[in-house]
Each structure stands twice: as structure tokens, then as C-alpha cells.
């Protein structure tokens, strides 16, 4: 397993990330935690449907995203990687709209190289392979980074997409976020493999295991994979070993299936605390800076939430938009009926 940043904040050798990058990453990690807290609060107030927090996985998600170039590379997310999506260009407002049930406002803006969240586990993997294949066919420089969980790695889609990506030698970086749980299912019930990264050999490309709570190591391994992909050397599988600190989502209660000792133990390896120690020791960060950052983050969140709240809610017409480019006569009739029925009487 690749490691660079110790729990105490010391680094083995030179940091692969510049001070600016480290500070940017730390700020994003703090934003991610704050977003978790806010959306869980809103869900408890009935203003958000279901929310799955990133808590504990920030280094894996953000360290990998920082190794990508939003002007060149694509991100294909699963459903728990919104910090990566924000870093790649998704406005915070759109992110809030996603969870506050305003899907029109949630759309990925034109020009942002990002696919929508995928809620069918593993289904995004062949999409990512195909998108990377298109980059290769069209001689467009760039890579595709696809996120998925260790649970998703059990689906046939993972296998078929990996094998195809290997045969076509496409510029794909496969980020397996192994947080040790799929809802209540622990890793050892998910697979008997000692390392999921070992599967890469069966597809003809390299696989690596990295400490997913180590920002610097995740960044370094991803950056190498990106270089290989850009050089035409094909896909890489990166297994980020991390831990889902929180519940699966707001309708889940982990106490039903795992004991708190395990969680306490994992919290000793908190990914943010490590970076904070490192950044402070290196003089990149201070308690004062952090207080200021948290204040900014709070108001950014306030603004994003308010902007969404002030938006008009989509109505009946919205469900007939973007079904097809043009509506068939039957759908036009259904639309007319729906609008008529929706009129306040």
C-alpha cells in the first residue's frame, strides 16, 4: 500500500503537491465536511430527500480530483464524490439543487467535463470506458476518471467495462473508493480477494492500492495514472483504502450492523486532521486561516442554499422536457393533460 502522509502529519520525502495545492485541498475538505453537516440538517428538517455523506473519504475523493485538469479531463462520478465534482467545475448551487430536489437547477453546466451522478451502482463504468475510448478515437488529449465503490466492483458492469478498457487501451483512471461498506455489507462479505486492485492484472493493466486517507499518496498515484493514460499506456485501477465514517445515507443507522469501536479506531486516521497537521507544520496553514476559511465556507453554503430556495420549483411541464428531443403526439397529449390537471382549481 502506498503511503506518504503519516497520521502525525509528517511526510515521507518531498510532497508531491505544492503548498497552494495542499491549501486548496484542505479548504475543499473543510467545505465537504460543512456540506455534509448542512445537508444532513436539511434532511432532518424535511427539506432534502436522501443524502449520503462523504465523511471520512475526503482525501480519496479530493486527492484524486486534484490530479485532474478540469480543462482537459472528464470525471464520471458515482454518487458520493461531490467534492470532486465541485473542484471540477460544478457550482455549489447546482450541487445543493441536486439534493433539494430541483433537477433543472442541478444540471451540469455546458462546458463542465462532468457526467451526472449515477445511482445505479456500477452502471457508470462502461460509460466512462466509452468516453475515454472516444477521446482516443478523436485524438483529444485528456483522461477520464471514474469513481466507484468496492460494492460496485462486484457488479458485472465493473468487469465488462474494465476488460473493454484494457482491450481498447483507453485513457481511463479507475478510482475504486473502498470505504469497507456497501450499506451494511462489510468488505469481507463483498469479496474474498485480499486486494481488489489485483483484478487489474486480469484485464491487462496496472493496479495499485493506496491509503485512501492520505491526501498526498492518493494525489501521487492518481497523477502517475493520468500521465500513463496521457502517454497512451491505457487504464489504471487505483484502490483507495478508506472508511465510511458516517451512515450510508440519511435513512441508514450503522449501529445496526457495526460496532462503534471500529468507527472510533477509524477516526484516528481522519484524513483532514492529517493534512491540517502537515499544513500547519509546514507553515502553509494556521488556526486563524482555518477560522477565516470556515467563515467563508459558511457563507458560500448559505448563499448556495438560498439561491436554490429562491428558484421557482419545476412543475408538471418539467417531466416532459428532455424525454426525447421532440415529443411524440402521444406525449404531447399527456403533457397537455398533465398541465391541465396541475392548474390550481
Amino acid at each position: 500500500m502506498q503511503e506518504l502522509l503519516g497520521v502525525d502529519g509528517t511526510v515521507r520525502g518531498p510532497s508531491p503537491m505544492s503548498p497552494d495545492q495542499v491549501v486548496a485541498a484542505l479548504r475543499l475538505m473543510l467545505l465537504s465536511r460543512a456540506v455534509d453537516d448542512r445537508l444532513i440538517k436539511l434532511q432532518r428538517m424535511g427539506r432534502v430527500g436522501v443524502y449520503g455523506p462523504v465523511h471520512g473519504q475526503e482525501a480519496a475523493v479530493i486527492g484524486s480530483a486534484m490530479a485532474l485538469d478540469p480543462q482537459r479531463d472528464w470525471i464520471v462520478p458515482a454518487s458520493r464524490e461531490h467534492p470532486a465534482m465541485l473542484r471540477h467545475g460544478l457550482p455549489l448551487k447546482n450541487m445543493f439543487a441536486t439534493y433539494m430536489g430541483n433537477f433543472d437547477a442541478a444540471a451540469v453546466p455546458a462546458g463542465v467535463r462532468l457526467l451526472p451522478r449515477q445511482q445505479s451502482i456500477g452502471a457508470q463504468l462502461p460509460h466512462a470506458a466509452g468516453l475515454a475510448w472516444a477521446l482516443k478515437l478523436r485524438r483529444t488529449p485528456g483522461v477520464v476518471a471514474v469513481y466507484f465503490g468496492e460494492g460496485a466492483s462486484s457488479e458485472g458492469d465493473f468487469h465488462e467495462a474494465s476488460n473493454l478498457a484494457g482491450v481498447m487501451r483507453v485513457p481511463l483512471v479507475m478510482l475504486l473508493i473502498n470505504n469497507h461498506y456497501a450499506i451494511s455489507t462489510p468488505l469481507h462479505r463483498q469479496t474474498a480477494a485480499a486486494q481488489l486492485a489485483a483484478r487489474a492484472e486480469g484485464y491487462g493493466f496496472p493496479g495499485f492500492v493506496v491509503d485512501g486517507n492520505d491526501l498526498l499518496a492518493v494525489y501521487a498515484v492518481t497523477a502517475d495514472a493520468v500521465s500513463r493514460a496521457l502517454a497512451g499506456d491505457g487504464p489504471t485501477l487505483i484502490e483507495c483504502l478508506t472508511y465510511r465514517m458516517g451512515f450510508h445515507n440519511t435513512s441508514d443507522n450503522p449501529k445496526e450492523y457495526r460496532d462503534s469501536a471500529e468507527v472510533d479506531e477509524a477516526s484516528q486516521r481522519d484524513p483532514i486532521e492529517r493534512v491540517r497537521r502537515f499544513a500547519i507544520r509546514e507553515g502553509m496553514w494556521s488556526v486563524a486561516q482555518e477560522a477565516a476559511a470556515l467563515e467563508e465556507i459558511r457563507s458560500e453554503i448559505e448563499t448556495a442554499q438560498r439561491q436554490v430556495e429562491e428558484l421557482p420549483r419545476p412543475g408538471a411541464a418539467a417531466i416532459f422536457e428532455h424525454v426525447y428531443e421532440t415529443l411524440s403526439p402521444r406525449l404531447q397529449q399527456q403533457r397537455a393533460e398533465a398541465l391541465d390537471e396541475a392548474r390550481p382549481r
Partner: protein
Amino acid sequence: MSSEPELSILEAIRSALFDEMGRDERVMVLGMDVGQLGGVFRVTRGLMERFGPERVVDTPLAEGSIVGASLGLAIGGMVPVAEIQFLGFTHQAFHQIGPQLGRYRFRSRGRFNAQVTIRAPFGGGVRTPEFHPDAIEAQFAQEPGVKIVCPAFPDDAKGLLLEAIRDPDPVLYLEPQRLYRVIRGPVPAGDHTVPFGSSRLVREGKDVVLIAWSAAVHMCLAAADQLAQEGVAASVLDLRTLIPLDVAGLIAAVEKSGKAVVVHEAPLTGGFGAEIVATIQQEAFGSLDAPIRRVAARDTPYPPGSLEDYFLPTVARVVAAARATVEY
């Protein structure tokens, strides 16, 4: 009946699983999160403690292998009750359900049969994320060899589940997630089974019959209440099973009034309502006094929960369709 315990649909399903696993040690439950957690809806809660981790199994996240392995388990002498977390995710196992489980008896000329029950919650109205509410039951009607069962009441939930587990052929058992806890009713204790292919007239009315299955049955009952206030007497027919279909019961219910409305949560085009209409007009053409209207979801992808009321059929739409049919 009053001596019978009042159970929710969810409790009725759970109690049936407890009873049958206790009665027949070949019966096992497998699926994602069904063991330790008791399933995302807690339907299987307590089964693992009671019957152990060999008979109540948390599987990896792969629907195709849950269904495909269930066929092998059945051939090996077990009686699997597989849970697919949400019906929408049976698509990942689609090639195993109809073409494999559904055809294995036929392919092997009776040497092997797939005594497998596939349980899956489905249906809208509870603001679930994409895929989770998909009502795709009609797609399985084109898979001969498979049976499709969809209870709407606690007693049927138990009776049809016991029948499904004991049926030597593969059964898709659809659970109305919206009703899991809200519909309560008496449930016969002990060995209560309901034969497949028998519909149930849950309300009598002379003017029109509302035909539905699963959660839509309750929408029809609510509509019938409203219609009664307008002086329209509506029957409500709960089909209970789609495959096999109770053609005789269906025709009998329609002939009483010569007027029918079919209601379902799936999109209109190609929904099982079309089969109901086609069957009625073929078998009871002479006694039809008005076109059979279908009240269904729109022919669009399932929208986010905040918009699902525009997508799904509503009591108001059922009432309007029934009124138009009666006044035709």
C-alpha cells in the same frame, strides 16, 4: 376475523418468512443487506438471529448472481427466497430471470425446475431516488415460465408469499413499498395460502369497475369513495396476480356494469393495463358499453420525488376517468 392479529403488509411478509423457514428447512433468504441489517426496509429483520447466517445470507452487490445462483441453489435442493433491493434493479438480472429461471423447466424437459421466489419492493409515492420506484412488472409478462404476484393487503401478502415459496416455478413477488407500514389488516394465523390466478373484488358497485393491482388498488378504493359521494357506485377488482391472470374473474367483474377503468403505476404505453384491456374487449366485447380507459403514469422517465405526483396516476385522474366512462 377479529381474533386474527392486525398486521402491516411488512409484518405480514416477515411473519410468512418466519413461518415458512420454520416449517421447511430448505427455505433460505439471500440478497443484499438482508441478514445483519434485516434489509433496507427491515422486512427480513430477525431472520438471521433465528435461522443463522447459512440460511439468511448477505450477498455481494450483484443482482445477476443473486438470481442465477438461486437457480443453482434450487437445483441443489434448497428453496431460495431472493431479495432484489428494488425492482428497478432486476434489470441487472434480467437475462437470468426470464431466459434462465423462467425457461429451465422447459429446457430440461422437466428434469429441473426453478423453485425460486424473487421478492422486490417497488412503486412510487415515497420520494425515493431514481430507479427505486420503477414499476416494470409488464416487462416480465413477456417471459413465459415466470409468475408475477402483487399483493395489496396484509392477508394476501402472507397468503401469496407462502404460495409463492411453495410454488415449484419461479415467482416474482412484488411488494408495494409505499404501503409497507401504512396498510394494516387482519391476517389469518397459521398456514394461510392464496391460490394464484384468483382476483378479489374488494368493493362492490354497479356502475363501473376499477381494475388494479398492488398500491393502485388503494388509489381505486379512494376514488370509489369519492365517486360514491357523486352517486357513482364503483367496484374495485384487485387482480392479485398478473401471471397467471384471472380472466374469468376479470370478465365477470366487467360484465356486471359493462364499464371498466384500468389503473397502474407503470407508464401507459406497453403497461400491463394494455393486456387487461385487450383481454376484456376480446372476451366481453358484446357487453362493453364504453371504451375502457387506462389511468397510468406518463410515458416519461421517473422524475425526482418532488415531481412524482405529476407523473403517477392520482385519485383525481381515476375519478375523472371513471366519471367519463360512466357518462359515456
